């Protein structure tokens, strides 16, 4: 077996390859990495040595996938771009294109089980096909460049590459054909349908061409909605609430801070969960198409439930009640609006329209909320 050197995409970026040809995985002399567990051997071609990859996912792959869904682990989960082989491909074998996000790469290699294929991995900076296509990193330029670096024309005799359909927003099939000579055929949306697509004579059914957004699809996305909201907004919010309830004319009292503040900490948590978990999961069942409205409705209901179950430590006066029903549904609405970035069907014009209406409401709502808290505080201190 020829000795291969693997580099991570990140390591490659540090190479002074500015404007010159970026080296592909199998040609690079950059920082040597451990031989990946999913590379099982090598194949000699007219374009050099190509790594052969496994179509079986291991327990550690699955564990990494779970971490991707729940944490920032996904920000650095990539494979080296370049050409790979599955099975025993020859000069007539199909070429499939993928992104260098390992989750995307793994979905494809798993789907190619039992088949022979070439897999051309683009450098999408570790981002999945659809998102990278939206930003253009999975794009015509990168595809043409990668075809050239991999010397694909020397590896195969045909001139056809199969690109996942969701890569289409970044790819111009006529443009790729013009520059590289390769004809782009759009495969199915989901890698798991690749086998059926080939079996049907490279025809994707209507079903394979549609993007769905099922209960499970939505559910797996929610941790990445909850996490940032908890990190970005919650600590500051909690601090402010504790300070407001703890602050007395004679100093800060921790007992007061907790007895008064705790219900509001729970309400804050409820608002985040209403916007980042309940709204996405129940998306089709919540009335209206606007995400801001959906989030607000969920928020009102969640606050109502909370108010009837959380003992408010005898502090519910009309000012705090007004604050509660003003602020928390708005917070839920704002958080729910962020989910537009994760959905499969929201367009930029629609989100722009929502923001134009809601941003002034969020800002004025927050200002009024703050004033209400001050009014409550001054009332408590018997200033008004």
């Amino acid at each position: 077996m020829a000795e291969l050197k693997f580099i991570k995409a990140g390591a490659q970026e540090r190479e002074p390859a500015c404007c010159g040809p970026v080296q592909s995985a199998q040609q690079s002399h950059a920082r040597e990495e451990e031989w990946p567990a999913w590379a099982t051997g090598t194949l000699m071609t007219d374009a050099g040595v190509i790594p052969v990859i496994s179509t079986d996912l291991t327990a550690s792959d699955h564990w990494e996938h779970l971490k991707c869904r729940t944490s920032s682990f996904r920000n650095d989960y990539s494979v080296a771009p370049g050409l790979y082989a599955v099975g025993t491909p020859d000069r007539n074998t199909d070429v499939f294109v993928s992104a260098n996000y390992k989750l995307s790469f793994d979905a494809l290699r798993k789907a190619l089980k039992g088949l022979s294929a070439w897999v051309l991995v683009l450098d999408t900076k570790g981002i999945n096909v659809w998102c990278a296509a939206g930003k253009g990193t999975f794009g015509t330029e990168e595809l043409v460049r990668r075809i050239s670096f991999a010397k694909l024309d020397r590896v195969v005799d045909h001139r056809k590459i199969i690109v996942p359909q969701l890569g289409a927003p970044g790819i111009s099939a006529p443009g790729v054909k013009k520059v590289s000579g390769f004809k782009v055929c759009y495969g199915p949306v989901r890698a798991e349908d690749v086998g059926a697509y080939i079996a049907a004579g490279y025809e994707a059914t209507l079903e394979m061409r549609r993007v769905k957004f099922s209960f499970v699809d939505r559910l797996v996305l929610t941790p990445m909605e909850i996490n940032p909201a908890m990190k970005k907004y919650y600590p500051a919010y909690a601090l402010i609430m504790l300070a407001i309830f703890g602050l007395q004319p004679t100093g800060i009292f921790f007992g007061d801070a907790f007895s008064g503040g705790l219900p509001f900490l729970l309400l804050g948590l409820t608002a985040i969960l209403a916007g980042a978990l309940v709204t996405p999961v129940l998306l089709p069942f919540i009335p209206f198409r606007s995400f801001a409205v959906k989030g607000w409705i969920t928020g009102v209901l969640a606050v109502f439930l909370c108010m009837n179950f959380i003992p408010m430590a005898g502090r519910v006066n009309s000012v705090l009640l007004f604050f509660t029903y003003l602020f928390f549904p708005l917070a839920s609405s704002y958080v729910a609006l962020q989910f537009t970035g994760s959905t499969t069907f929201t367009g930029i014009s629609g989100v722009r329209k929502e923001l134009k209406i809601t941003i002034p409401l969020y800002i004025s709502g927050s200002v009024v909320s703050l004033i209400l808290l001050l009014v409550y505080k001054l009332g408590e201190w018997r200033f008004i």
Partner: protein
Amino acid sequence: MKYLSNTASLEFFPDRCVGCGMCVEVCPHGVFTMEDRKAVIVDRDRCMECGACAGNCAFGALKVDKGVGCAAALINGMISGGEPSCGCSGENKKSDCC
């Protein structure tokens, strides 16, 4: 599921359409169908403005104000005064070229 109605910026110029069917193939939401060897828009409200149809139409029969419908990205763009950017597509990572 559909998003807000009558907001998509999708435009179709039927006189330029040669009926190749590429838009029907790339659209992830079934916005188009073929009728009498020409494309027709069957459901505009399903359009998410991904730009796949316009970018792959060799005849310039489609136009769309392409973009990612992501509130976080648009808000970041408003704050920074620049392009919408959510920082989740690698654009904030160290660039590898010039």
